[in-house]
């Protein structure tokens, strides 16, 4: 009996009918559907069956509590070139330049509404003609210019949520602090076992013919069940996936250039988009409020 309930719910929402009264109804089925869309996007509230005050280890809330999430929001950045810095003792440290190009908080995600705390962060700028209308509406809603890339950064609680439009600049980070970085590494295409998994291959000579870079045996015969086990490493697509580097030191922060220098190399090509956030292995650094909110 779904239609009966759905109509009743519609009438409960007062403004809905006023808005569509003189409308050309070309899809009558939307009114008879019992899906959530028919309720105007209103989600039915779930009631917990448990009245226990302590969190169950298997519950969603407990899982969220257990999860190691940084206090502060992370940022997107563009990978530029590599360079080096010298320490006072003369030691040279190779480092990568990451530039924070017009990074702004786009939208907050709250536990009440979305089930977790996070900030949607955007980088760069994209011509509005290349953006879909729903996304333009999204940017309009939060008063932010259209962004080239947007990405969510989980934070521990509501203290980590920044207002939409907040500019995240290089001074979000502190010199000497440690960060986790993740980016899409360079794709190598379809690669053989030697390149992809570092296998040794076969000898170049000693009677070997035409088999120099092959993967070799894929497993036992009868003893192993006469089959190839699932997950057997083979040739295939290499690279082009996300890579995370944990616990890298920030060597230098330049607010004017919007630049953060990170110790060592970072995955991905030059010009690639990189995500940086305080490392989960140390407590977040204390930063004096540097953020500027652009009000529009």
């Amino acid at each position, binding site marked *: 009996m779904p*239609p009966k309930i759905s*109509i009743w719910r519609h009438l409960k929402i007062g403004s809905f*009918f006023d808005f569509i*009264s*003189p*409308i*050309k*109804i*070309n899809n*009558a089925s939307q*009114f*008879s559907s019992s899906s959530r869309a028919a309720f105007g996007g209103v989600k039915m509230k779930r009631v917990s069956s448990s009245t226990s005050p302590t969190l169950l280890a298997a519950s969603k809330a407990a899982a969220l509590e257990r999860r190691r999430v940084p206090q502060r929001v992370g940022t997107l950045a563009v990978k*530029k*070139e590599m*360079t*080096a*810095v*010298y320490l006072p003792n*003369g030691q*040279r440290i190779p480092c990568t*330049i990451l*530039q*924070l*190009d*017009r990074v*702004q908080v786009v939208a907050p995600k709250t536990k009440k509404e979305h089930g977790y705390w996070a900030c949607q962060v955007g980088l*760069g*700028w994209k011509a*509005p003609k290349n953006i879909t*209308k729903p996304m*333009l*509406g999204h*940017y*309009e809603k939060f*008063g*932010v*210019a*259209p962004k080239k890339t947007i990405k969510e950064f989980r934070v521990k609680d509501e203290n980590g949520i920044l207002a939409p439009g907040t*500019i995240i600049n290089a001074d979000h980070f502190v010199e000497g602090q440690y960060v986790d970085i993740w980016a899409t590494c360079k794709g190598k295409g379809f690669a053989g076992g030697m390149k992809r998994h570092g296998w040794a291959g076969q000898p170049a000579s000693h009677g070997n013919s035409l088999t120099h870079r092959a993967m070799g045996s894929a497993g036992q015969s009868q003893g192993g069940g006469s089959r190839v086990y699932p997950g057997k490493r083979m040739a295939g697509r290499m690279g082009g996936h996300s890579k995370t580097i944990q616990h890298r030191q920030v060597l230098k922060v*330049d607010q*004017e*250039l*919007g*630049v953060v*220098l990170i110790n060592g190399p970072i995955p991905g090509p030059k010009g690639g988009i990189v995500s940086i956030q305080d490392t989960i292995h140390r407590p977040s650094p204390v930063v004096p409020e540097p953020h500027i909110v*652009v009000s*529009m």
Partner: protein
Amino acid sequence: MMSGPSSLRSMASCWTSLTQSLKVPTLLKPTLLPTTFTRNFIVAPKREKRRIKIHPPIKGPPKNPLQALTTQALQTLDPNGTRQKMFSRHNKDSIRPGDIVQVRRRNGDPFSGVLLNIRRRGVDSAFLLRDHLTRVGVEMWFKLYSPAIEDIDLVQRKAKRARRAKLYYMRQPKHDFGSVANVVKEYTRRVRPTQRQRK
């Protein structure tokens, strides 16, 4: 039954849309409206297209941060610009491949040798020296702006300009310069008596 012209006409009029829209009674269940009825008689008015407001982008950082960072770093690593000038392409008297160069290090003995290669990459600029010590060929890459280098001296120019940028052929026994110790000794005696005294 429908053979008369009047009936044909009525059929046609039935499918013409009305010029003005009819209001649907609000209490009428929309699901119960017959499809033909809605198609013919409820006409949506032309709504004004809502323009999505597009916010202007904020000001971005400079596009080439490496250049700015390099000049910034060189201000501390090479404040007088002497090393920059020494290896500049535009300087007529700059050090070139084939010259004999002495590098005095902050901790460690000075190293001298024939300059085989210059790698110009901003802060990471480096050069390669080759020498023979106890009859064993030794090559050293030095970072030009490294604080571990105290001073770089041009000991002797190559008599004739080298016609290659990389003089790797000098590793071959046929072209090897051998030890530069004598040339450097002569230079130290002539130009840097103070250094000799210190030693």
